[in-house]
């Protein structure tokens, strides 16, 4: 029984899903060497099948995306407490004959957000924010236009993203979200939060990011936000998962952003449970080292 008078059944389980990359241009029977958009296949592995072929370089067919979500709905929906969904909800920009447009990116992202809402919302409630299973999305580097490039808000893009995710983001965080597109959800009120971190502000391939040492840098402002939020969560005796699209690895994050971020994740080890990321499409783990990052940060000063 929650303090707000509602009740929730917990299962002690949650889902992490990432990099769905649905491609509306995917055509069954086309050639993988043409991104599965057109052409005649010249060998067996070049053939675009209904659900796709592993390692052939194509994005997800819409069938793969639809059947994946259906399988989750049928088999997991009632067994999990919340969903961590770490972005990249559109095809890659790898087809010169069909370059992506900003509206295509936002349209498909909006459709995906609606699908997740429909899957996990309480069907008996008229409140659009009443979820049986909370969903915590974060933005991928392919979900922004131009590719990889994303600035601090408020901008038309951050407003667009808020419009898509409005029902996932707690109302009192609307202004903070407009600025930094990071937010958190209390998936177990007063006890457990999931932070959605805008990792593109730390990401080397974002042309607007250059170190996290200047106040004008988006990464600096993100870390400032992160620090205040973590401190408040600590003071409330809450625990937290960190989530986002681009993993905090040295080769992904710019300048001191990696080391500073690592320090936050470790100096709040009394409350942080771990970090969940996508982007690299490989299942593995990397232990990052507090002592090494302290040395790097103090050395750089």
């Amino acid at each position, binding site marked *: 029984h929650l303090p707000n008078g509602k009740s929730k059944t917990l299962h002690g389980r949650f889902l*992490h899903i990432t990099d769905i990359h649905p491609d509306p241009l995917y055509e069954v029977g086309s050639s993988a060497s043409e991104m599965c958009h057109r052409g005649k296949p010249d060998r067996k592995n070049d053939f675009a099948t209904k659900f796709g*072929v592993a*390692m052939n370089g194509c994005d997800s067919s819409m069938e793969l995306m639809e059947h994946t979500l259906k399988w989750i709905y049928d088999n997991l929906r009632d067994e999990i407490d919340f969903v961590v969904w770490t972005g990249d909800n559109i095809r890659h920009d790898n087809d010169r004959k069909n370059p992506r447009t900003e509206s295509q990116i936002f349209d498909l992202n909006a459709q995906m957000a609606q699908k997740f809402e429909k899957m996990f919302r309480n069907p008996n409630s008229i409140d659009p924010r009443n979820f049986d299973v909370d969903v915590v999305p974060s933005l991928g580097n392919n979900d922004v236009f131009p590719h990889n490039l994303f600035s601090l808000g408020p901008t038309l893009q951050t407003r667009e993203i808020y419009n898509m995710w409005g029902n996932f983001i707690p109302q009192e965080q609307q202004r903070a979200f407009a600025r930094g597109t990071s937010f958190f959800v209390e998936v177990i009120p*007063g006890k457990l939060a999931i932070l959605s971190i805008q990792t593109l502000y730390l990401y080397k391939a974002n042309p607007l990011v250059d*170190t*996290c040492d200047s106040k004008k840098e988006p990464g600096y402002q993100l870390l400032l936000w992160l620090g205040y939020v973590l401190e408040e969560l600590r003071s409330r005796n809450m*625990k937290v998962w960190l989530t986002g699209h681009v993993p905090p690895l040295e080769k992904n994050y710019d300048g001191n952003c990696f080391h500073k971020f690592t320090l936050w994740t470790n100096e709040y080890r009394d409350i942080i449970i*771990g970090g969940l990321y996508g982007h690299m499409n490989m299942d593995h783990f990397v232990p990052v080292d507090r002592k090494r990052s302290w*040395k790097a940060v103090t*050395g750089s000063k």
Partner: protein
Amino acid sequence: KASGKALVGDTADDSLGVLDSAVEASGLRIMGAKPVNKEAYMNTVREMYYKKIASRLGVRMNKKGKKGRTDRKSGNGDRYSIVNVAGSVIPTFNPAFRVWEYNISGLDVEYQSKDFQSQGWGAFFEELEIKMERDLQEDNIFSGWRRTFSDSRRTDKTIPRKMPSDLALGPAYTPQLFSPTRFIQYYADLASIEKKYKKALKNGLGEEEAAVEAFSYGIEYCSDDQPYAMKSLLTKDYIDLAVKLADNDKLWEKFTERAFISTDYTD
């Protein structure tokens, strides 16, 4: 690149260079989903992280993968934080996602406690906006001077204070409420799904019926499966696994097979 090197000083490691091509090929640029240099990337992870940890802990493994000489104990591994990187739905390899299990025992009792009160966040966010505005104001001559001549950690608020020593380690380090206990890795074996789909079509089912019959996710593995069963998912369990993976080629083979979602990928 030059400024990055200057910032991290001699802690930057050139042998991480192989990561550049792997990371760039992972779909960050205008590339597609085709895996390139992923094996090289995984080998670099093994060299740069797992082997370094094993060497730091002074652990040697024998051929059976059992720990030999141990100079130092990994303890609770609290100098490390674990970055979990997930498999994707896009068929770079086979489509995948993960279900995590975590400890919720005792939560019902805590919620019944009279001491427990959930607070709103409105006031915090109003105050946060003011604090951030203040912190981001342009430097004046005094704050610039202060930053130059005093301990940077005090003035740069993007560097955390060290964790107070009176705080206990959290769920990532010692078993407690919300500690992750186990995960189940699901995957869709696309080759087998395609076979089933074709067979269903041959048997006279319509396209949609055949798709429903053929398509399914299955369990690829669980964190407590052999050959490197993890009893729990605390940081020390990951550090122990990293140490095992550092020297044992058979385990490493299994680990990379799982990293590439049960495809037979090689570079």
